């Protein structure tokens, strides 16, 4: 166990430079579009010199860009997200969106694992059977379709054409609610985005797990487990699955990262009021402080997921802890 703790500490130390690099790069790029004061001056024609001076002081625009990065970094680390160029505090704008994004991502992930793992195991055990061929074909379909395209198709079919489900958003702003109550309305709004995201990552998990289990089942220790008189259930669900799951853990981490990276597109397709949606709007409005903070927050989430992935990997496989 001591090995595991040392491993976790090493991983934590490793992500700090990554965080600094990503946020610095974003800062440089967004500021290349113009410094905040110029952008505000552009948007608000009648601005008084006193206001400009106040803005310059607030954003430290007279100082070199690296110094400004550190001003940003220190206030960010203190939890002060600053002021949006569109008015209001950044924190009050984006904190509620984090919850909506995570809700969608978490549900999609939970469903795709809950369905993908049994499907992958089943497919692997019944290799080349009809069921396996069907599962594998659907998986390849889901795997190769772009999420936004699938999302648009799903909206066209289920919302526009069949009128079964609401169009987008997370909740109806006013009655009539879908399904009659505000709770069913929330669920109704979740079905399409969760369904589409689940389908896409489900396909990845199923395919990977199938391949991984087929590979593990060929190993000598599986033969040895059978030769020892263990029940087939134990051989498959204890030994084969645990050995086969490592690539899934890695991919889960990667796929959360990818899914978050894809959030601006998917959330825009479903008008889902989350970080990704907010991101697109902030970029369109050249709202640099919001873009900077959103990038930093998404980076932190992705890095945390990576660390969690590595830790679960090390927890599952004792060989990793050595390294």
């Amino acid at each position, binding site marked *: 166990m001591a090995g595991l703790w040392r491993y976790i500490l090493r991983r934590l130390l490793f992500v700090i430079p990554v965080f600094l690099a990503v946020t610095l790069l974003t800062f440089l790029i967004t500021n290349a579009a113009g410094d905040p004061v110029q952008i505000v001056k552009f948007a608000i024609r009648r601005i008084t010199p006193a206001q400009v001076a106040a803005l310059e002081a607030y954003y430290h625009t007279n100082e070199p860009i690296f110094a400004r990065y550190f001003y940003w970094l220190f206030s960010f680390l203190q939890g002060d997200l600053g002021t949006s160029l569109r008015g209001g505090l950044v924190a009050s704008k984006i904190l509620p969106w984090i919850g909506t994004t995570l809700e969608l991502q978490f549900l999609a992930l939970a469903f795709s694992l809950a369905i993908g793992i049994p499907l992958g195991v089943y497919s692997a055990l019944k*290799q080349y059977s009809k069921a396996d061929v069907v599962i594998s074909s659907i998986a390849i379909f889901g795997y190769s379709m772009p999420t936004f395209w699938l999302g648009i198709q799903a909206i066209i079919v289920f919302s526009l054409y069949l009128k079964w489900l609401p169009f987008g958003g997370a909740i109806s702003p006013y009655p009539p609610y879908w399904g009659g109550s505000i709770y069913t309305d929330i669920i109704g709004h979740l079905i399409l985005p969760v369904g589409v995201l689940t389908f896409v990552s489900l396909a990845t998990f199923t395919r990977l797990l199938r391949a991984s289990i087929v590979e593990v*089942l*060929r*190993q*000598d*220790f599986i*033969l*040895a*487990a*059978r*030769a*020892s*008189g*263990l*029940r*087939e259930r*134990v051989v498959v669900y*204890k*030994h084969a699955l*645990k*050995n086969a799951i490592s690539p899934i853990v890695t991919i889960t981490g990667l796929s959360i990262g990818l899914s978050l990276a894809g959030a601006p597109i998917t959330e825009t397709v479903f008008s889902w009021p989350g970080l990704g949606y907010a991101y697109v709007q902030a970029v369109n409005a050249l709202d640099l402080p919001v873009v900077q903070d959103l990038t930093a927050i998404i980076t932190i989430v992705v890095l945390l997921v990576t660390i969690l992935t590595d830790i679960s990997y090390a927890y*599952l*496989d*004792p*060989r990793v802890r*050595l390294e």
Partner: protein
Amino acid sequence: MGEEILRVENLKTYFFTEAGVVKAVDGVSFSVYEGEPLGIVGETGSGKTVTSLSIMRIVPPPGKIISGRIIYRGEDLLEKSEDEMRKIRGKKIAIVFQDPNSSLDPLFTVESQLNEVIMAHLKVTKQEARNRALELLKMVRIPDPEARLKAYPHELSGGMRQRVAIARALANEPDILIADEPTTNLDVTIQAQIIELLKELQSKLKMTLIMITHDMGLVAETTKRVVVLYAGSVAEIAPTNEIFKSMRHPYTAALLKAVPRIDRRKELKPIPGSIPNLIDPPSGCRFHPRCPYVIQRCIEEVPELEFTDQRAVACHRWKELSLKGE
């Protein structure tokens, strides 16, 4: 000689691959007598491992036992239900695999892997299983067994891993222990120790050893009788002490010339030609493309396994050849 404990009769195990049907074991027959260690030898790919997996009925797909009988103490294992078979595996017949690096699950500790095998056959508590596991590690002479119980396979040396694999195979004191090239992947000095251990345990636990190997020296050292396999069928069966002096099958003769022996410093003669393709094996005697004594009949007619005075041979010409060892 004890009574017959295991009889393999005309066993056929094929692999249905995309390239074709691999006749890995094609009509193998031999008997094992209680307390009489048996050797199974043959080049790589001759079907030794597939034979032992067939006995356990754990041939992996696309492999399938096509026909034959495997009689263990009078009962045909091929007729048993999967559940009955499970109670035989590891309890009555156990296997030690060739490569200790891959025959232990890398993700579980030694203790957990021994416990599960003990608890698969005995109704015991975790604590009792642990005590038994400790006892087993002592039996296979693992130093500091308490600490080793907590170890993962990668924390052990190759020799230690093979000792753990042996401990696992012996956990339920099987009747028959199949050792499938148990030392091939180990250092020479470790090999000798593992063989010593197996010899000692077999007499202590009164189990019948089936030693699968390429190594004729090992056959001489550990067995009383030997089955020579060639390309999925039996070439010859003979008492070990006789086969070195008078082999009856030309393949046995070639094999003896091709394997190193510690007691003899002679030049090795590799067997000319290569092992046949088992999808489309040679007609007649499968050894005919490589046999120095081949005649027309060998190409046309499959030689039957003929049993005479404790021995068996599948060669049309064995009587006239009278092969001798040097």
